């Protein structure tokens, strides 16, 4: 009985240690993401809207400029991300 209990405890401890390690890695990657500039930028871009002179509304994605010939010159790859704080 005692032997069984020791074996059982050993495996329980081993599994829980693995789970703790697994969760800490998961949490580390989640924290890395939630504290990143990419996360803040993604959240901002998900919500940001802009109204055009013709009263149409679009999101703030700068790649929208590529849809209009007169705005193509204003497009600079990575500009919005770089100036975002």
């Amino acid at each position, binding site marked *: 009985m005692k032997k069984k209990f020791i074996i059982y405890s050993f495996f329980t401890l081993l599994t829980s240690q693995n789970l703790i*390690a697994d969760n800490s*890695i*998961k*949490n*580390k*990657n*989640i924290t*890395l*993401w*939630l504290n*990143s500039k*990419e*996360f803040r*930028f*993604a*959240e901002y*871009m*998900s919500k*940001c809207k802009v109204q055009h002179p013709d009263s149409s509304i*679009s*999101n*703030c*994605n*700068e*790649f*929208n*400029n*590529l*849809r209009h*010939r007169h705005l*193509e010159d204003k497009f600079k*790859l*990575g500009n*919005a*991300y*770089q100036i975002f704080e």
Partner: protein
Amino acid sequence: MKFLIFFMILSSCVLTGKTQSLREAEKYACLAPSINYKSLDALHATKITAITWAKKYTNQALTREFNIGDKCLHTKLLIKMLYTSEDADIGKWTNKLENTSGQIKIIKTYYGSGSNGLAGCRYYISRLSKDGNQEDRGFIACPNQLGWGILDDSRGFPVPAHLVFAGWYFYDERFFK
């Protein structure tokens, strides 16, 4: 009692069409479409037919997915690459402890009026590896919703985006073939 709990879980999934892993990914905004592909594809199918959804939902439920940490790593890379990388650039992440890795390659950016309505969109391929198994998926990310005549289903309606996230509408590349 067990049946009641099972029924409650099942009915909540049926009502929302969302899997548990997708809800977790939404909670942390780790929504890169390739790494959430099976869940998003099942959800996308709810907009098309119920039978397709049921098949895809079952398929997703039986597959071991990437963990939330990997989903966040892939999403982080995707956001940066879509907004800042040139065509042909490749970005990577690796998680040695989980034996997983991911890559994103920007294939093409559609410029100007000769793009058949795809102007501003970016075509990219996402490669995900887990325990030696590798899977490639192509997506077209557009800054706006694609309209009539670009991606029509058999009934003539525009195919909806798989995901709207971070200023992009993500379309599964297989619909363009």
